[in-house]
């Protein structure tokens, strides 16, 4: 199997390079045969890498520990779902996953793109092939997943316990899909530059890919937060770790693009900026991978270090130089078609929205790289952690939240003072009502107050937008409120899906601000002993330690500590947190003991319990107890955001049946000038 896998990698490399070469040598108008070859090569590439992936999966599931990767990341007693997911758990497998999925996306882009954009497709094939070729070269020369050992171990090392979580099967693939799919919009942008077809065609061709990529990144980041929260046991979901930051960077630039591209579509402006944003998003996705795999910056997420980092650095620099050189050469062809007419316009609001998003991306990048810069300039190592990022990014994030509410309220081109007054009254009033209510409730945390008041303002904006649309439909079509809402959304999915995304963002912000009221305590309890923990909402939890039980389970030995929980004296259930010592099939300990958190969630707060260990080898247990307010709103925000994103890219336009179309079509017939034109 490894031989076949190895052969498929070489075949993939030659197919990718052949396809890219054919694309550059033959344009559709001069050598259509070569252009067709380039396009077909993407299907061959996907097939070769699919077979290579099957070979690795076969090795994993067959426990072929002679394959170094299989021995490194699995063991005989690892549950099958994690053996399957071990494909992307390590450096080498994840590179194959990346290359395979990208080849699939590359082929899908060829198959799904309208023939109207046929001139772009050979170049799109060339770019996707070259990126796949880079990953295959990296595998073949630095991180080969099919590398064999000189001996066969009796069992594998097993999977890191923190990766043995259901999230492991879905979070990394989602994030990878996000990173990987950015290559498709990038390929269309480069194809447009190469072919000089720089009208809005390339934007239409790749718009859904952009949203898809943004959706994958959003889902991957949210799932990553969830995984960190339920698995790592530190009571939070975002630590500003370099690898977390790296996933946020392309998400921010893609979000900026999704807004600024509307200005290009409606007004023919910001063409250069939009190409720049797509190129930057692609480069940032490679940069994120470089950080994870090079070990250049200390991170809890880093893969084992090797020579892979050098490959990524060279590829990153080459891609940046070539992309921006191409943009520079085509600069004169990207002249704007329109001019901004007023500062009080939606275009201006979107520009400032882009400024905030790119500004946050820059500050995150700057903070992530600042330790390296400082060491280079001063020779002093420093740490840039959460206090830095919070101080720099919270004001920018709130500015962005305000713009989320402001943008939709301002008309395109130019808004009159009367229009602005009419649009802003209700949302501003909503924000003020929220602010006054919170102050009256005794809340004095400045940032949290600002975030919640702005969230109220954004909620007011979105509600007003929906209500006005519904009212207009009711007046014009006499529809019921649910009917008007359904038709409103169905007829303008992009706009109203976008508003739903805004609701997701404000939900996130409300949840993030809640962490300002986090309560944490460490207590030691003997069986029967009770600890009390006061919630920021005023009620008190009573937690009574029941004891510690120990038993074997699957591939681990479990020590489980349980607490009976009461809220203001009323029983609400039992929480059990575990310590797990993972073992291989011969009963030998593998890895350090890991923790399983116990969480009781409701819409207001999470009671988060971690069994830290036992005192003197007895069932007297030490617990870390935490109350995390509003955490469930983070997951709700993610779900809303993704629902909104799906709405914007849902296929099809207004749902008009053929019967309705014939009923609604009215007018008069006009003979064509010159009957011959009708032929």
């Amino acid at each position, binding site marked *: 199997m490894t031989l076949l896998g190895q052969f498929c990698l070489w075949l993939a490399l030659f197919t990718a390079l052949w396809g890219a070469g054919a694309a550059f040598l033959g344009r559709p108008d001069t050598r259509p045969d070569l252009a067709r070859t380039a396009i077909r090569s993407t299907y061959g590439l996907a097939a070769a890498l699919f077979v290579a992936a099957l070979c690795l999966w076969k090795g994993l599931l067959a426990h072929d520990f002679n394959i170094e990767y299989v021995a490194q990341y699995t063991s005989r007693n690892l549950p099958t779902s994690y053996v399957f997911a071990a494909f992307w758990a390590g450096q080498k497998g994840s590179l194959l996953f990346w290359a395979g999925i990208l080849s699939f996306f590359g082929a899908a882009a060829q198959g799904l793109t309208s023939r109207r954009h046929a001139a772009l497709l050979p170049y799109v094939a060339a770019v996707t092939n070259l990126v796949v070729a880079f990953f295959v070269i990296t595998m073949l020369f630095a991180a080969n997943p099919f590398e064999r050992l000189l001996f066969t171990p009796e069992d594998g090392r097993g999977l890191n316990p923190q990766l043995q979580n259901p999230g492991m099967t879905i979070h990394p693939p989602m994030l990878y899909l996000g990173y990987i799919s950015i290559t498709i919009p990038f390929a269309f942008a480069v194809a447009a530059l190469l072919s000089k077809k720089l009208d809005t065609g390339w934007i239409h061709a790749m718009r859904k890919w952009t949203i898809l990529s943004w959706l994958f990144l959003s889902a991957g980041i949210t799932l990553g937060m969830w995984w960190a929260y339920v698995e*790592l*046991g*530190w009571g939070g979901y975002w*630590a500003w770790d370099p690898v977390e930051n790296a996933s946020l960077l392309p998400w921010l630039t893609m979000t900026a693009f999704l807004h600024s591209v509307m200005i290009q579509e409606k007004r023919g402006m910001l063409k250069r900026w939009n190409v720049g944003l797509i190129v930057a998003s692609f480069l940032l996705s490679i940069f994120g991978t470089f950080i994870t795999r090079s070990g250049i910056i200390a991170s*809890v997420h880093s893969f084992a270090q090797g020579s892979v980092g050098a490959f990524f650095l060279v590829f990153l620099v080459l891609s940046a130089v070539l992309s921006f050189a191409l943009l520079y050469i085509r600069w004169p062809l990207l002249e704007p078609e329109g*001019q*901004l*007419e*007023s*500062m009080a316009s939606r275009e*201006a609001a979107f*520009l*400032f929205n882009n*400024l905030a998003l790119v*500004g946050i991306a820059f*500050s995150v990048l*700057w*903070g992530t790289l600042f330790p390296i810069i*400082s060491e280079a300039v*001063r020779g002093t*190592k*420093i740490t*840039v952690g*959460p*206090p*830095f990022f919070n101080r*720099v990014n919270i004001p*920018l994030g709130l500015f962005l939240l305000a713009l989320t509410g402001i943008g939709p309220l301002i*008309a*395109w081109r130019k808004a009159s003072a009367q*229009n602005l007054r009419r*649009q802003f009254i209700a949302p501003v009033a909503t924000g003020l009502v929220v602010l006054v209510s919170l102050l009256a409730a005794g809340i004095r945390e400045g940032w949290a107050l600002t975030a919640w008041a702005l969230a109220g303002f954004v909620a007011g904006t979105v509600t007003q937008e929906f209500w006005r*649309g519904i009212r207009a439909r009711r*007046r014009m079509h006499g529809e019921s409120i649910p009917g008007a809402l359904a038709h409103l959304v169905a007829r303008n999915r992009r706009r109203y899906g976008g508003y739903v995304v805004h609701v997701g963002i404000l939900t996130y912000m409300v949840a993030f601000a809640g962490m300002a009221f986090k309560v944490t305590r*460490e*207590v*030691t309890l*003997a*069986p*029967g*002993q009770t600890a009390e*923990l*006061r919630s920021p909402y005023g009620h008190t939890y009573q937690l009574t330690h029941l004891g*510690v039980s*120990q038993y074997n389970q699957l591939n681990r030995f479990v*020590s489980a500590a349980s607490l009976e929980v009461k809220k203001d004296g009323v029983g609400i259930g039992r929480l059990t947190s575990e*310590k797990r*010592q993972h073992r291989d099939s011969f009963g030998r300990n593998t890895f350090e003991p890991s*923790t399983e958190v116990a969480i009781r969630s409701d819409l207001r707060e999470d009671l988060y319990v971690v069994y*830290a*260990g*036992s*005192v*003197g*080898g*007895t069932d*007297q247990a*030490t617990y*870390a*107890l935490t109350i995390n307010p509003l955490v469930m709103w983070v997951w709700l925000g993610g779900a809303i955001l993704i629902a909104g994103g799906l709405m914007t890219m849902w296929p099809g336009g207004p749902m008009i049946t053929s019967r309705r179309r014939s009923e609604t079509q009215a007018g008069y017939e006009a003979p064509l000038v010159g009957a011959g034109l009708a032929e």
Partner: protein
Amino acid sequence: MNRRALLGGAMLGLLGTRVSGQVPVARPDSAVGDPLYRPDLVQQRAVATAADNDPVVKELEQKLKCTCGCNLDIYVCRTTDFTCQYSPALHREVVDLRAAGKNPEEVVAAFVAKYGEQILMAPPAEGFNLAGYLVPGAAVLLAGSLIGLVLLRRARDAAPEPLPSHPAGLPAPNPADQETLRRALADVQD
């Protein structure tokens, strides 16, 4: 009750955490439970003390990085990675310095003197580090001002094209249609 236990109890009460029940308060390092079946397969911990929950200690530890290579602050590491040998020792250093009468600034200074500037979770806002704090905000402000200036100038220069009130060759608009259109536009300002 000795003075430490009294102060510890008072601190726990102030923090909103109260431990009650039939079991007597244990001294750190002493255990009052039944032996575990496999004590070797679970982490051993000392009894949590008032100092572990001291808000000043917690705040200090959130500013200081654990030296185990985890990239976390001392507080998060010692309450998350229970296998870490470094964060409990660093925690004890913080507690000892506080017990020796050092104020928070002096504790931080002592850590920087011993471990170097990288012990801080965020660099002090002085000297070259100021660039770290100020560059992002300054860049956004500068870019925002430039965009604002350019937009203002362009907006001044760009005279809106006058729209023909009634294109030639088209029938006169119906007042009822115009009213419908006006109301629809008023409702949907897009």
